[in-house]
């Protein structure tokens, strides 16, 4: 098989998967690319050292400031209220899809800051719900007209990373059915009527991403990295692609060598190439960085 991918795609794949033995990467369908709406997909990375206290707990006021800065930069609006009005309407029914994994949650601080701004738009509190495992049974999610997707990124034993794309796995009745081939087809979930076209914002929580998995429950505090970041974007693939670059870079930094995620997080590239959910091509992503910029890795 001859190489068919563009240089930029090859660079992304290499970044996502560390060293490769040559030009041939057998990622199905990678020769096609998903066009980004309006040119490049914008991803906003906001970092603030004050977001974690001395015990590593998120500080609500700082989280709110970070989200506000991020949504303003994402929408080019002057204040958070007007920014939120561009993505949520008062009559929307809003599901905030979080992640409740006990060792690394979306965090109540992020959920509450999101909820506060959505209420300010005029959405009734009874029309907002935060849920993870129960989304299919949750009346608000069943009627939702808008979804906010918010979760931390972490290494994952089978999908490479737990990503924004993967966070919708609970919208299918049998999540295990999407597991073959290391969850390659996770993006297919985004075409289901329950979620299709409803996602207004993706928030990748990168306060303390987990970069390596160890043991049956995958978590060990030794392998989380204080990154102090939040990433926001409308394109989940673009945000995941940037998050993945950060995880890979942290692994290089920590292990002092190339150490590919095992298995590779190929579902992100496939979300672009096969499902056209967004773009994973760094040349089609506009990264806007706000705040602390040391060791940002991107």
């Amino acid at each position: 098989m001859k190489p068919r991918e563009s240089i930029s795609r090859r660079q992304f794949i290499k970044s996502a998967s560390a060293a490769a033995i040559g030009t041939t990467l057998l990622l199905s369908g990678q020769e096609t690319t998903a066009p980004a709406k309006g040119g490049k997909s914008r991803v906003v990375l906001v970092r603030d050292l004050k977001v974690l206290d001395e015990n590593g707990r998120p500080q609500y006021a700082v989280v709110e400031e970070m989200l506000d800065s991020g949504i303003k930069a994402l929408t080019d609006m002057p204040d958070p209220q007007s920014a939120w009005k561009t993505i949520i309407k008062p009559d929307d029914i809003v599901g905030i899809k979080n992640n409740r994994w006990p060792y690394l949650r979306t965090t109540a601080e992020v959920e509450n800051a999101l909820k506060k701004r959505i209420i300010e738009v005029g959405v009734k509190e009874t029309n907002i719900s935060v849920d993870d495992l129960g989304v299919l049974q949750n009346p608000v999610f069943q009627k939702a007209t808008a979804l906010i997707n918010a979760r931390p990124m972490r290494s994952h034993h089978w999908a490479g990373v737990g990503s924004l794309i993967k966070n919708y796995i609970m919208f299918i009745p049998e999540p295990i059915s999407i597991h073959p081939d290391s969850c390659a087809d996770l993006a297919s979930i985004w075409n289901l009527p329950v979620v299709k076209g409803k996602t207004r914002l993706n928030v990748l929580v990168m306060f303390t991403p987990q970069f390596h998995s160890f043991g049956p429950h995958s978590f060990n505090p030794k392998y989380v990295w204080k990154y102090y970041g939040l990433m926001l974007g409308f394109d989940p693939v673009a945000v995941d692609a940037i998050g993945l670059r950060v995880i890979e870079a942290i692994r290089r930094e920590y292990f002092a060598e190339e150490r590919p995620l095992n298995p590779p997080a190929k579902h992100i590239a496939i979300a672009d190439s096969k499902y056209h959910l967004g773009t994973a091509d760094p040349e089609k992503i506009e990264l806007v960085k706000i705040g602390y910029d040391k060791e940002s890795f991107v």
Partner: protein
Amino acid sequence: MPENINEFYKLLPDSIAGWKKADSPAIYTPENLSTYIDGGAELYISYNFKNALSMKYLDSADNEINVDIFEMGSAPDAFGVFAHSRETLDDRFGQGSEYAAGLLTFWKGRYYISILAYPETEEKKDVVFKLGQTIAGGIGSEGALPPIIGLLPADNLLPETVRYFHHYIWLNSFYFVSNENVLNIGNDTPAALGKYRKGGATFFLLLVRYPDAPRAEAAARQFQKRLLDGAEDGMRPTKEGRWTGLRCRGDLVSVVFNAPDAPTVRAILDKIKT
């Protein structure tokens, strides 16, 4: 030695240093393991997971120490799942163990054990170690290592990096090879992977044993065609100037990745005793 996974519950003390054993353990099978391990079940299933016992110790403040005992398909499978993410060599528990920041894992016989106490304290660590010793002592006999890992040449091998698997997903453990099953690795093809370091260069050796020579030859041909541009001598440099080399001898396929030069590839391939 416990005859089945349930007997580990009886083996463990009712209380230890103020921690009390919770009343009822949970048992998991391949069908419901994913309800317990969020996202990790496939790793175990890929090593022929049979069943698991999960139980807790609680202190007066309801802090938890979680004990998980996994019965795998064989001792090599227990080694494989243990070694999957091993970073160091430590033989304090069972046939190999690792402790980091509140989590002890080890393997013995066909069992893989995890004892988890987050956040870590010295007191909890002491309890974790005592429980580990009790469980390791209760498993009477040791198990055999996967024979194929014995074929990895010892010179310059970093022993803590030795991996064993029979699912293609784990092919990329140290070095990205492919997203596809380019060597037709499956349940009947035990594979070993090790990292080598020589003169500042790091390279990797993969061994795959097939049920017969024709299957080995077919896998080798496929790899040569798809990843070595059909190189007849089985050797090819990468864009970065590193070398990949493959050799098929009988039912064994050996592949070297990321070697600094062609002589290094040949030297390590020559050392493999089939």
